[in-house]
Each structure stands twice: as structure tokens, then as C-alpha cells.
């Protein structure tokens, strides 16, 4: 499998930040970043038939009674790979499927878990986002992946967490605390804290090495990151980047990028630069530090512009 080779390479790059993480689960590709916390690392590429849209970090947390999957992957095939990894690691049943946000690389593998009848948990804003985007994402996967994307789809949430609220999931001897955030990366981000190991699963609230994508609120995201910085956790699982990174230190580059994006977009608006021209004026030196900047930075400037012009 060519995708595997690339993924191993990426995991190697990420490992420079931490001691090399132990690998378990046979050849399923998952990384145990803390006892019972498993990450299937995504590749740093755009979605394609070769990588099966396995471009985001997804994974699961194993308690003494049950398993919670956090994001089922970017396609049916990617979700199936994750499900096989769960089976390889534990005989315990998957009882909860946590959806961090609507983006296709995190939710479109849901169909791989459809027959389990699991509880599907999301932010209270997730159903509206799914309703407005799911069909569009399905068409996009078909365009980017061809037949490799067939059968992919999200599962509808069966349990919602209101913004500002927490939900404690008891997995048996281990409680996973889910928090619904105000608009940040998207307008419906959900994070998970495993108190037992001090692991903060941030999904796309945290990007490392791969350029972030802004789809919620720029000042909001900075605020949420600032608040999360106070959470006592040893490590975080980013949505894109290494399987795990030190917390809160690993948020530094993201905060720097967002800060520069905000300041320079404001300056462009104040200078009367239009939305079509703004991407070539804003934070390009900073963006060049990130992977896949060419695919996302211009879009981030546009999104920032559309928000900040109404201040």
C-alpha cells in the first residue's frame, strides 16, 4: 500500500518533536500516544485516491468497558482501516463515535461504523453544518478520489453538546470529557480530554506543520486556543501534524500564524485592498513556513477578510 509508506515517513517527521512513540496494533498504522490512546496519523497531502482521504489524524480511546472513536476518518476505506485497528488493539466494543467537526477528512468515514449502532456525538452546531455541506463534500470526494470514495459518508449525530458545555463519557475506569467550543476553527468544534493520561484531543483546533484552515472565526479561534492553553495536559493530538505533540507548547506556531493573519488582513482592509487582491498582500512570509500553504493560505485570507470587514 503506497499510502502506508508515505504515512510512516510523515510520522517520522512528526516524531522529531517528541521521543519516538511506541507503535502497537500490528501493522494497522496506529500509534499509542499515551496508554490506551491511539492515533491513526494522516498524511500531509490533499485528498486523493491514493491516500483515501486519510489526511487527518483520527483514532480512539480504550477504556475498561468500551471504546470511543474520535473521528471516523475521511472515507469509507479510511474508516474501515481505523475500525480494523480498533479490533487489532482491543476486543471491547465501540460505544461512542465523537465527531470533532464537519470537515470531510474527519467525518466521511462514518459509514464504516454504521452497522454498530453507536452513539454519535457532536457539537450542537454540527447537524446544521452537515445538512448544508454533506452532499457537497460527497460530490467533492467523488471528484478527488473517483471510485475510491464510493460509499463514504457521515453518520448523523444522536447526541449533542451545547457550546460552553461539557459531556463526560464513561468508558469504564476512564472518563473522556468532551467540550463544545464557541466559533474557532469551525463554528462547531468539539474537543476531548482524557484526564487519566493528560491527553487533550484537539482535532483541527490544533494544526502542526500543515497550514491551518480557517472556517469559523479568526479572533474566536485565538481565544479558544488561549483558554485551552490553561488545560492541564501533557500532550495534545492535533488534527493535522504528528500523532501527539507537547501541550501547550505546540500551539506556538499556530498562534503566530493566526495572529499575523489577523493583523495583516485588518491592515489590508484598512488600506482599501479588495478581497480578490488581499491574498497576495497578507502574511505570505509566515505562510511559507507551513506545508500545503499554496492550497489553503489564500483561502484563509479570504475567510479572515470576510469576517474582519464587518468589525
Amino acid at each position: 500500500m503506497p499510502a502506508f509508506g508515505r504515512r510512516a515517513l510523515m510520522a517520522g517527521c512528526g516524531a522529531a518533536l517528541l521521543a519516538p512513540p511506541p507503535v502497537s496494533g500490528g501493522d494497522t498504522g496506529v500509534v499509542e500516544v499515551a496508554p490506551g490512546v491511539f492515533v491513526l496519523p494522516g498524511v500531509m497531502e490533499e485528498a486523493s485516491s491514493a491516500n483515501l482521504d486519510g489526511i487527518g489524524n483520527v483514532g480512539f480511546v480504550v477504556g475498561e468497558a468500551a471504546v470511543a472513536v474520535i473521528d471516523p476518518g475521511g472515507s469509507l476505506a479510511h474508516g474501515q482501516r481505523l475500525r480494523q485497528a480498533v479490533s487489532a488493539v482491543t476486543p471491547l466494543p465501540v460505544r461512542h463515535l465523537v465527531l470533532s467537526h464537519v470537515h470531510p477528512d474527519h467525518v466521511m468515514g462514518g459509514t464504516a461504523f454504521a452497522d454498530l449502532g453507536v452513539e454519535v456525538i457532536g457539537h450542537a452546531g454540527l447537524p446544521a453544518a452537515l445538512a448544508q455541506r454533506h452532499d457537497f463534500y460527497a460530490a467533492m470526494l467523488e471528484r478527488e478520489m473517483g471510485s475510491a470514495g464510493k460509499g463514504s459518508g457521515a453518520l448523523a449525530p444522536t447526541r449533542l453538546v451545547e457550546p460552553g458545555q461539557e459531556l463526560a463519557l464513561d468508558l469504564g475506569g476512564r472518563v473522556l470529557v468532551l467540550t463544545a467550543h464557541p466559533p474557532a476553527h469551525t463554528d462547531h468544534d468539539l474537543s476531548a480530554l482524557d484526564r487519566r493520561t493528560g491527553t487533550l484531543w484537539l482535532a483541527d483546533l490544533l494544526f502542526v506543520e500543515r497550514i491551518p484552515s480557517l472556517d469559523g472565526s479568526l479572533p474566536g479561534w485565538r481565544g479558544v486556543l488561549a483558554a485551552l492553553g490553561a488545560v492541564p495536559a501533557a500532550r495534545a493530538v492535533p488534527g493535522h501534524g504528528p500523532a501527539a505533540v507537547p501541550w501547550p507548547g505546540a500551539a506556538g506556531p499556530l498562534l503566530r500564524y493566526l495572529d499575523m493573519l489577523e493583523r495583516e488582513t485588518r491592515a489590508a482592509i484598512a488600506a482599501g485592498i479588495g478581497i480578490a487582491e488581499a491574498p497576495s498582500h497578507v502574511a505570505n512570509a509566515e505562510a511559507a513556513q507551513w506545508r500545503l500553504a499554496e492550497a489553503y493560505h489564500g483561502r484563509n485570507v479570504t475567510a479572515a477578510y470576510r469576517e474582519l470587514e464587518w468589525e
Partner: protein
Amino acid sequence: MIRSAFPRRPLLLGAAAAGLAGPGLAQGIEPAEAPRRAERWRDLKEAIFGDRRTEPAGNAIALEAPARALDAAAVPISLALAAEVVPQVRALYLVIDENPSPLAARFQAGPSGDLRVLSTRVRVDAYSFVHAVAETADGRLLETARFVKAAGGCSAPVGGNLEAARQRMGRMRMALPEGPPAAGRAVPVQVALSHPNTSGLQMDQLTRLSIPAEFMRELVVTYRGAEVLRIESDIAIAENPTFGFALLGEPGGELRVVAADNRERRFEGSWTLASAG
């Protein structure tokens, strides 16, 4: 008046649905797609203009659109007319061929305005031609086109934080990037209305949610009491509909914008354009 906007829209929606059912949806600009795209544009023209003939605009219209959309939710489009056709062109149509509702906007010059420059931001659902058709006072139709590749990644036609637009619904912005109008000199103006501008959803299959349609149907600009520009639009215009145009006239007058949405809500804004110095 508002109700008469886009009298042929049901027909257009029908044409769009037929196109979406085709096997070649969003396959990019492969040569194999060319006949289907050409046929689609013929169908759309017939739906909008009946049996009237169009002719290539040549240098009469400069249509600018990005070859690759950065953000499917807000693709900037701008149009400029060659000086010699400015007095003749009284209406301009903007069509996004592959969108569910292809006719994005119709711009009508008022008695004291013209269409020399126009800009807006649109939603682009798929790889699509964007067409502009100028209608002259003597009934000629001049067409031009640009091909836009849809955005990839997590981008989607509906933006990421519609609630913010809804919470400040009705608020308007006006900007004069080059200052107030001066005698004999047209200046660019940009106006925007905070509005989610969404098509809504009838019972989404996955989530069982229904979301009501809310979109701007009409926006009229007047200066010193005379109509400058009238825009009829719908869901292809990005959230917080934003329009740029040129304004001619003496400084010191009142610029007034009146907009209405499909739920008959009315929004107004006015600004006195100070004389320079």
C-alpha cells in the same frame, strides 16, 4: 416589483437539475466535457433570453474571475465595460452555469448610473463556466465567459459562521476606496448587506433538519434621489451580499441603499458622501 424578479427561475432550476443528473458532473475541463458544457449554456441562454441571439462580447466586456476558486463560499467576480459600450449597456446578467440556481444576478443601470464596473462575490458549487451577458439599449446581447475550478479541501459554498451574519442581519457597509465622487469623475463604491443569504434546505436526509430559505432578492442604489443601480439576485450571491459599482455625480449628496429579501424583510442604509476637502 420584487415578486417579478427572475420570472423564469423555475425553468432555470429545472435546467440545473437536468445538468446535475448528468454523468459528467464536475469533471474539470477535459475535452470530453466540452459538448455537455456548451449544451448547458445553450439551455441556460434559452431559459433566460428565449430565442434572442447572443454574440461574442470581444473586448466590450472584461470579466475577471479566479481560474481556481480559493473559497467556494465567496469567489470574487468583477466586470468592466469598454468605454465605447458604457452608454449602450443598460443591463448585465451574471450566470454560474453549474450552480443549482445558475442566474446569480441581473444588474440594471438606473437613469443616473451606468454599468462601467461591477463586482460581487458568488458561490461556486462545481467546476463551472461563469458567463456575463450585457444587454444594450437596442437589444443586442453580448456574452463572455471565464472557467472557474471549484475550491477543494474543506471549503464549501455555505460559509463557516452564518450565525454571525444572521445576528447582525440588516447591517450595511459602504466604502469609497478612492474617496467621494467628484464632478466629471466616476469613483468606485462598495456596498454590502449583512445577511446569511442561504437557499435553505427542505428536510435534509441525513440530519432530518429543515432550514428556511433566506436570501436577498433585490438591492436598489440611489444617489441624490435618482436611481443608480438595481440588482436582482438570489442564492448564488455569497453570504453578506457585497457589490461594487461606479458612481458619477457631484459630492455632498445622499447615497441610499434599499434591499429586500425573499421573506419581504426590508433593509435600508444611507450615507452622505462628503465633498473632498
